[in-house]
């Protein structure tokens, strides 16, 4: 029985319970993520991090959240009030919705009902996630625009440009997964990895491209240009305070967890145990698969923290150049290769042909990269001597300044 059929038999109340569980998981995970991030980041900087509220400071993010919610809620006079209020709601709601199709456990017993911890299983599940997260961008753009202020507007536009650009790379990196699994349903992709090996191994380039673009997609360091404190004050949420700001904060972290969960689902075998530990999946009546899922998500979350602790922020043009000129073409080439291999396999081409094709691709790549290297070496022609520079030269004791803009000739 497939997961879709299994979930189809859920009565309404089970669906409601599962929706509640997904919501709770997201909120609790956010609280824990904020705490974990602050602690791990502190560790990476020889600090301790929050340790005063509760054991190990575990309740720090909760108390911060309460404080944030109780603060004065300011709506600037220049703001477009309706849009200003709707924007954080859109941003947050869409992040939560992305979680609906993530399979978090195998078959388990939920209040006496055989089901899986996955709210629904769409045949186009991954496309649905891409669509929903794209709508989340509206939250950012509208927040920036409706604030009626310059810096939020710039931040909002930067953010949206960033998210849209990296979503293309992300979508393209997922195409290889679709080709390989033959489906866009999250549960089918998980099953196909269970039968073969993890996509992270087979489709390694896709995995890397997804990892990079998921950081760009979530506006996180080193791609956090939209919230560049030194440049844009606080980015699109500069004018937000109190609960509305808390919603953006929540959205950011739920979004991180969502892309991590998607990465787990598509590349690391979802809720299944790593190869060789398959027996653990039966523990606690199947609920142990949830532990595996959480572990893998945390692995990705750790990468987020690690990047933030290590890398400086990119310049905007470097960032865009990387997205459009490296990630997207790289993805396209990789998809072509994967598709060709897949077709060759399905048509029963013999092994020699496949190997020849792979070798050809490798040779071609080497040729191209060596050409690129050679073109790089010819750089910076020396200045031709004897020509007057047409730029102003500052005065020095033995030199007088050259006037370029005024005076008589």
């Amino acid at each position, binding site marked *: 029985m497939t997961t879709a059929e299994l979930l189809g038999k859920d009565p309404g109340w089970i669906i409601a319970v599962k929706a509640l569980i997904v919501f709770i998981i997201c909120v609790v995970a956010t609280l824990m993520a904020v705490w974990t991030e602050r602690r*791990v980041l*502190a*560790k*990476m*900087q*020889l*600090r*301790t991090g929050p*340790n005063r509220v509760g054991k190990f400071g575990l309740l720090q993010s909760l108390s911060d959240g309460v404080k944030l919610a109780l603060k004065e809620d300011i709506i600037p006079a220049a703001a477009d009030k309706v849009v200003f209020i709707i924007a954080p709601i859109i941003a947050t709601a869409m992040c939560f919705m992305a979680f609906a199709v993530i399979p978090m456990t195998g078959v388990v017993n939920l209040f006496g009902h055989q089901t899986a911890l996955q709210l629904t299983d769409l045949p186009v599940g991954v496309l649905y996630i891409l669509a929903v997260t794209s709508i989340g961008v509206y939250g950012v753009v509208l927040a920036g625009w409706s604030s009626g202020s310059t810096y939020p507007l710039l931040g909002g536009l930067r953010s949206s440009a960033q998210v849209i650009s990296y979503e293309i790379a992300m979508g393209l990196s997922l195409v290889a997964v679709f080709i390989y699994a033959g489906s866009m349903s999250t549960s089918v992709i998980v099953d196909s990895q269970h039968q073969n090996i993890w996509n992270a191994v087979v489709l390694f380039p896709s995995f890397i491209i997804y990892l990079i673009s998921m950081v760009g997609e979530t506006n996180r360091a080193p791609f956090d240009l939209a919230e560049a404190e030194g440049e844009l004050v606080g980015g699109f949420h500069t004018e937000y305070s109190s609960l509305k700001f808390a919603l953006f904060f929540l959205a950011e972290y739920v979004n991180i967890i969502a892309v991590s969960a998607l990465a787990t689902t598509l590349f690391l075998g979802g809720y299944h145990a790593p190869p060789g530990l398959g027996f653990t999946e039966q523990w606690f009546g199947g609920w142990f698969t949830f532990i595996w899922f959480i572990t893998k998500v945390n692995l990705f979350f750790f990468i987020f923290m*690690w990047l933030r*602790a*290590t*890398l400086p922020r990119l310049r905007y043009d470097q960032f865009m150049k990387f997205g459009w000129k490296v990630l997207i073409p790289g993805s396209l080439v990789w998809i072509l290769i994967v598709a060709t291999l897949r077709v060759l396999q399905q048509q029963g081409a013999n092994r020699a042909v496949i190997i020849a094709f792979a070798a050809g691709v490798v040779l071609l790549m080497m040729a191209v990269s060596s050409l690129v290297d050679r073109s790089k070496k010819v750089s*910076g022609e*020396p*200045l031709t*001597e*004897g*020509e*007057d*520079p047409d730029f102003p*030269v500052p005065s020095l004791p033995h*030199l*007088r*300044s*050259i*006037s370029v803009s005024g*005076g*008589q000739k």
Partner: protein
Amino acid sequence: MTDFIEPRKNSELGINSVPFVEVEQPGAAPLLEQAKGFWVTFSTMFKKNQTVQYPDVKAPTAPRFHGRHQLNRHPDGLEKCIGCELCAWACPADAIYVEGGDNTPGNQLSPGERNGAVYQINYLRCIFCGLCVEACPTRALTMTNEYELADDKREKLIFEKDDLLAPLRQGMLAPPHPMYPGMTDTNYYNGDVKEAHPSQQEQN
């Protein structure tokens, strides 16, 4: 327009005679070299962190840390301060206020003729430079390692003599009391007085 200087040609200035030197620009480091940064942050996680849990744990200061001042006593309990005001004169921040007073037979606070009747240090002004300590001729004024000098009222940060005086230690008697029998202020200064004499207690 008289003071306008006609711009000279570059050829006249000799700008282009400066030889062109190609500068080696460091290109992007190899990927492995760049990845080293990840190891730095990762390995740091397992190092001992440097945070001092301050209000719970007070790390000791350096031994000669300039903290709050202290007015010292002679071993029999008399104050060392003679009210000379040299500390106040030395103070670059004008943080010290001293009023000298006369020692009378019934009110002997320090050895010799004079004592510091009023002694105030304003910690809103003090810059903890220690020039007052250098100026003090009797070693009456020194500094402790105490650094927790914050309060909620300006008045509380003007320390009076009572706040600054060193506590009475073993063998000390609270002044005023007469000087050690047979000892002059010079004996006190030379450190000949080692403890309080029983007669000082009686005549107190």
